[in-house]
């Protein structure tokens, strides 16, 4: 890359030094190729996500339990048809929220607090490279979640319909919207506040976002507001496709797109690295 080479000769560098060095530390600076840096960073971020027990509780254990429990025990009236056909899309939406929003907000908040973002800011990895790596780590985690949850849902008798591309589009836009919100929170609040707020929002949106409780259960006025939440748009959009076979749920996609633009824009504007 752009590293200086004037002192890059191997052997012993002695400029100004009185002693005779072994040459072990002789300067030879340079950044790794940017693709390799991002791949390494994404691998590290993914390992950190998967190694964290509390994160796994949010991203794997809770969605799995909800899916199994509410599909097999008749707690909430999910309308006509198999409960799992209602629940599976909602739990997939919850999985996206748990990783892109809650998990990412908490992890990034503490990375900011412990100077990880600051230290990486002095490394050859550019900031956009770090954010790309974080996004890749979120996507890898989501793929693992979707595979696991889909397998469980299929075992519970789930029969998905619709266009897989529409599903990917919804999941992608949902990830963008939730990532923006998570990073906005992590980059502006104290780490402890982020921890508390991200968990609280997770819980509230789990209940009020059409994940396991159909929005039809709420009064009309409340429902109109809840439908504008990103979690509602994602879970209802996924349901429209996977349950009813809709080609392209434009309303849900539009809501998610607006959230994505606003939250990512605000995160880019207000994120503080230290």
């Amino acid at each position, binding site marked *: 890359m752009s590293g200086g080479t004037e002192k890059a000769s191997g052997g012993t560098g002695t*400029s*100004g030094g009185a002693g005779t060095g*072994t040459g072990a530390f002789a300067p030879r600076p340079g*950044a*790794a190729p940017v693709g390799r*840096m991002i791949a390494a960073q994404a691998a590290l971020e993914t390992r950190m996500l998967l190694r964290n027990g509390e994160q796994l509780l949010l991203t794997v254990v809770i969605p799995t339990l909800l899916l199994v429990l509410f599909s097999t025990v008749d707690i909430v009236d999910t309308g006509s048809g198999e409960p799992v056909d209602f629940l599976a899309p909602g739990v997939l939406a919850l999985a996206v929220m748990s990783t892109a929003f809650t998990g990412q907000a908490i992890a990034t908040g503490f990375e900011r607090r412990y100077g990880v973002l*600051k*230290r990486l800011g002095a490394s050859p*990895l550019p900031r956009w490279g770090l954010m790309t790596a974080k996004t890749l780590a979120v996507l890898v985690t989501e793929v693992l979640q979707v595979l696991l949850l889909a397998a469980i849902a299929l075992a519970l008798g789930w029969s998905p319909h619709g266009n897989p591309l529409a599903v990917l589009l919804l999941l992608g836009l949902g990830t963008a919207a939730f990532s923006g919100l998570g990073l906005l929170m992590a980059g502006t609040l104290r780490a402890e506040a982020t921890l508390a707020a991200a968990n609280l929002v997770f819980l509230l949106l789990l209940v009020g976002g059409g994940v396991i409780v159909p929005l039809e259960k709420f009064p009309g006025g409340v429902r109109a507001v809840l439908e504008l939440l990103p979690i509602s748009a994602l879970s209802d959009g996924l349901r429209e496709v996977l349950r009813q076979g809709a080609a392209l749920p434009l309303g849900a996609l539009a809501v998610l797109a607006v959230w994505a633009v606003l939250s990512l824009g605000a995160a880019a504007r207000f994120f503080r690295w230290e």
Partner: protein
Amino acid sequence: MRYESVVQVRGLVKRYGSKTAVDGLDLDVRAGTVTAVLGPNGAGKTTTVETCEGYRRPDAGTVRVLGLDPVADAARLRPRVGVMLQSGGVYSGARAEEMLRHMARLHAHPLDVDALIERLGLGSCGRTSYRRLSGGQQQRLALAMAVVGRPELVFLDEPTAGLDPQARRATWELVRELRADGVTTVLTTHFMDEAEQLADQVAIIDAGRVIAQGSPEELCRGGAENTLRFTGRPGLDLGALLTALPDGTAAAELSPGVYRVSGTIDPQLLATVTSWCAQAGVMPDALSVERHTLEDVFLELTGKELRS
């Protein structure tokens, strides 16, 4: 060599709100040397170094590192400069070796990670997650992360704070080796002995300004000369002593019964003092010759003790 001055700071001012952290600071660092930025907590050491690292934008003045602007040319500088923060900088769940290996992967020609781990005595804790490392181990990992990319220039912010004496000496040894291999080092410290042991150049800073700059020897010569102290009966008449002492030597009763002679303390002068004592019938208790240290320089310049 293209740039004699590897780091050049001119008239740096940095404010945080109404507080002025750095107040018109100048600093020059020559290639291949070790420069210690020495001062008490809150003197502006970290702010100065972090401005050189590109973390802070100067409110006034200019900063050039390897001839570049640390903020505008950050992308070009980052691969060439190693950074050790005062604390943190590692994922709490990352293992020591994992983090160091990761930093190595971000560089084109990194050091051998295994050898570096061995060198810094981190072998026993390579599999330990960062949050379970001792303070000293965390410090050594941060140091390793600063040098693993084979930088031309390293900034070490209080590299030995919280280290036991053995680990401290190991860190000093590494800094000496960096120097011998042609790496330029800028370190901050509030340890006098660290600056005296390691530094080619010392910049003493207080309240955001450089109040003295030079090699440790120059700084120690520049202030008062060496001193000789003794205790005796209070209220001795120093007139005869002053007459007997050579020009440029001073004698004073600092506090009742505590006497100080300052000047070039040589065997001749010592004999003069003791024979005067013999004539005056005074037993000079606690007679000691003190070499002038950076600690004294700092005390004289600021009237403050330099302790953390």
